[in-house]
């Protein structure tokens, strides 16, 4: 079943440039200097735009292109890249029966304009993004933590947040292992538990 590397590479799907796509064109015409790049992968259009104009982009997509349904807002942490984060938006158009993905880059500590005033659905998604990544959204009506609690330190989905979690002071289940057991490794004197 194994294919040669070259063959495998050939079979792999590739992203193509989508700057000529009508939606991108319309975006470019309405809001010049906002579109950074556009690509198409697996039939999905991704448009990268300037961070500051994201609310206007959302408004344009909603009003002019009929992307009325905000599917999701999330972010990706690129750790070492500058700027560090990508904020990712998914919109869906009922009339076109198609989705579009809009991305904008944001550095750590930078504010991204909120689209909660354009799409009500983005409200909690942006709160979640703030909670998980620490990207704050300017103009958000109620930017509080949502999945973790008020006063939680750190943002769990950042790549530098430890997987085992941090000591929050909350009483969690103590890590208990039978004598000699557990992930600590070999122990020749381990007694067999029955």
């Amino acid at each position, binding site marked *: 079943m194994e294919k040669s590397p070259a063959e495998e590479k050939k079979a792999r799907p590739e992203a193509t440039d989508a700057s000529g796509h009508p939606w991108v064109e319309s975006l470019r015409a309405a809001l010049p200097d906002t579109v950074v790049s556009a690509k198409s992968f697996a039939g999905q259009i991704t448009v990268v735009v300037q961070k500051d104009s994201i609310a206007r982009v959302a408004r344009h997509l909603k009003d002019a292109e009929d992307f009325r349904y905000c599917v999701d807002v999330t972010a990706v942490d690129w750790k070492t890249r500058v700027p560090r984060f990508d904020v990712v938006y998914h919109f869906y158009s009922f009339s076109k029966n198609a989705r579009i993905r809009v991305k904008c880059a944001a550095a750590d500590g930078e504010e991204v304009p909120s689209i909660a005033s354009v799409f009500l659905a983005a409200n909690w998604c942006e709160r979640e993004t703030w909670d998980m990544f620490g990207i704050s959204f300017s103009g958000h009506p109620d930017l509080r933590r949502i999945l973790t609690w008020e006063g939680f330190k750190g943002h769990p989905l950042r790549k530098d947040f430890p997987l085992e979690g941090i000591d929050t002071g909350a009483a969690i289940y103590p890590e208990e*292992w*039978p004598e000699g057991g557990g992930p600590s490794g070999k122990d020749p004197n381990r007694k067999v*538990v029955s």
Partner: protein
Amino acid sequence: MALKKWLDRITLLDLFDGLSVTGRHLLKKKVTIEYPEQKKLPSDRFRGMFRLDEERCIKCTLCAIECPINIIYIDWHNEKDEQNKSVKVLDRFDVDLKRCMFCQLCEEACPTVPKSIWLTTKTYEMAAYDRNESLYLDIRKLTDWREAPNVKPFTVVERG
């Protein structure tokens, strides 16, 4: 139309309909399985308690690698046997059952035929008073593990 609706309303038709459903069930066969005396046997693919065959195991640790939550701990060392061949000997094969989510990925990853670790033992009675002791399986428990003796005889209830 309005009259028909009123007819339904004043004769309490909807309420009597509901009562008739529950009334019918009063005499129908019940679906309760009286557990310790009656049991429904699990299916052949049921994912229950672990079992390990030490002879078959080739110590490849694939199961430990594939485990999504890393609850399988395997240590082994090389030994020379009579023909002076190097063989792997298990030091430790532990499954932390209390954290197991019974996804069967370890069994799927196992390259031996038949599998040397498997979950299809049809045993689900794993309640224990002490999760750290009883629900932590080492080699002995994994290989020499027997089904808990049934205190009382039970009748098997048909599936489905």
